[in-house]
């Protein structure tokens, strides 16, 4: 089996945007190696997926739309003003720098990082707000630009909210710290911080890479006798074995949970564990 064979079944789903994050990351990591065969197959799958547009019931838009659009286009053509070219999506630094060595010092470093990034985002937000205000002063030609700016603002605000949530979980004294020890494997501990209101942040460092497309899946072990492990989110470490996983809505409350466990599962996760836990941590 060539290296590309494992990806053949993913092309269409990738073009469709239906791959779950672990599989998508795996394929993108492969594409990033420069595999021309897979890149071409993905491009052809995009064509196939684009044909699905013709399933949409035919609808007619109002003449006013064309009128507004042509007014804008004529205005811009006339002024020959070089409107700002849409910039590529900001590549956010969702990857967390090396920080986890277990303990307060590492937590402080992470907090400083978030504070710095939040400050940067605020500056970007302020700049985008100013841009938005200027756009509002323009004539109708600015309508499209304003919509794009608002969309960008909303995206940034969404990311800020995520970062605030992670920071709150990691710094709030009310959060419960859970150390997950490796079971029968040589690997560092993982650390989970569980906040009753904001959720769980699970972090790992130098974690052995799961084989093939497999992923690590978090499980909540109920206190109730005979209770089955409750599936939570999956993650695949980066090339250095590091990851940060935010679980905004855990499937159970901390008070009902006895322990957290990590197993290795097929891509996409499993409804019930298929392997024995590799890391386990009891709730204190």
């Amino acid at each position, binding site marked *: 089996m060539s290296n590309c064979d494992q990806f053949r*079944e993913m092309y*269409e*789903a990738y073009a*469709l*945007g*239906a*791959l*779950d*994050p672990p599989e*998508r990351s795996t394929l*993108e990591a492969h*594409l*990033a190696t*420069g595999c*021309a065969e897979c*890149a*071409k197959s993905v*491009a*052809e799958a*995009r*064509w*196939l*997926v*684009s*044909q*699905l*547009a*013709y*399933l*949409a*019931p*035919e*609808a007619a*838009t*109002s003449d006013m*739309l*064309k009128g*507004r*659009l*042509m007014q*804008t*286009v*004529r205005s*811009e*053509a006339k002024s020959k003003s070089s*409107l700002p*070219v*849409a910039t*590529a*999506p900001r*590549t956010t630094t969702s990857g967390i720098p090396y920080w986890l060595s277990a303990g307060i010092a590492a937590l402080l470093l992470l907090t400083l990082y978030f504070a710095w990034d939040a400050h940067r985002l605020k500056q970007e937000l302020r700049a985008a707000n100013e841009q938005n205000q200027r756009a509002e002063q323009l004539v109708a030609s600015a*309508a*499209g*630009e304003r*919509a794009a700016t608002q*969309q960008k603002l*909303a995206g940034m605000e*969404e990311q800020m909210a995520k970062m605030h949530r992670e920071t709150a979980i990691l710094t709030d004294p009310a959060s419960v710290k859970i150390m997950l020890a490796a079971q029968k494997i040589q690997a560092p501990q993982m650390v989970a911080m569980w906040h009753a209101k904001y959720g769980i942040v699970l972090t790992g460092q130098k974690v052995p890479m799961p084989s093939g497309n497999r992923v690590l899946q978090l499980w909540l072990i109920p206190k109730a006798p005979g209770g089955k492990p409750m599936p939570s989110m999956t993650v695949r470490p980066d090339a250095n074995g590091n990851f940060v996983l935010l679980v905004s809505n855990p499937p159970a409350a901390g008070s009902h949970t006895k322990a957290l466990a990590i197993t290795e599962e097929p891509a*996409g*996760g499993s409804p019930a564990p298929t392997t024995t836990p590799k890391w386990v941590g009891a709730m204190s």
Partner: protein
Amino acid sequence: MLDLVFLAAFGPKDDREASPDAALVRLLLENDVGAFEKLYDKYFRIVYSLVLRIVQQSGPAEEVVQDVFLQLWRNSARYDAARGPFVPWLLTLARNRALDTLRLKSERQRRLENQTDELFSIVVAPRYEQELDEKRRAERVRSLVGELNPQQKRAIELAYFQGLSHSEIAAELKEPLGTVKSWIRNGLIRLKEGLHTAS
């Protein structure tokens, strides 16, 4: 953005560059309003139909369509005919913009973040692809998808028009994840084979 890495892998430009659409797009670089109007008149209906199907409301749909065509006007230099035919590229752009709108509205996570720089997306038509008018193309696609079993069709529509992932579709349809993956892949393969056979 990943696609930029592979541009060189697609070899020399082919004769698609000579298509009427590609010629019109090139005229946009010269601020040719007439060329823009021709492209709009030719494709606004399919773009609007697609976007309306995704966002469900005419007001937001018109905003998305306006945004898509303004992006085309302002960034026509980003479209390279060598990367593929114009219409699938435009539809990919429109779909992703519409899904972005849908996700922001419902505060869903941006799954396609790395894929949404549609202005750079490469779309390559297969060798058997031939020029068809929009009406015949729509008839052909609807007929082929109509032959799929209802659940298979539903899974594909949830992915395409609502931007749901395999896991989300499995939850929505209360079916095993593996089943959903098979439905979608096999359905698209059948569509691909059907388009090939019909050409």
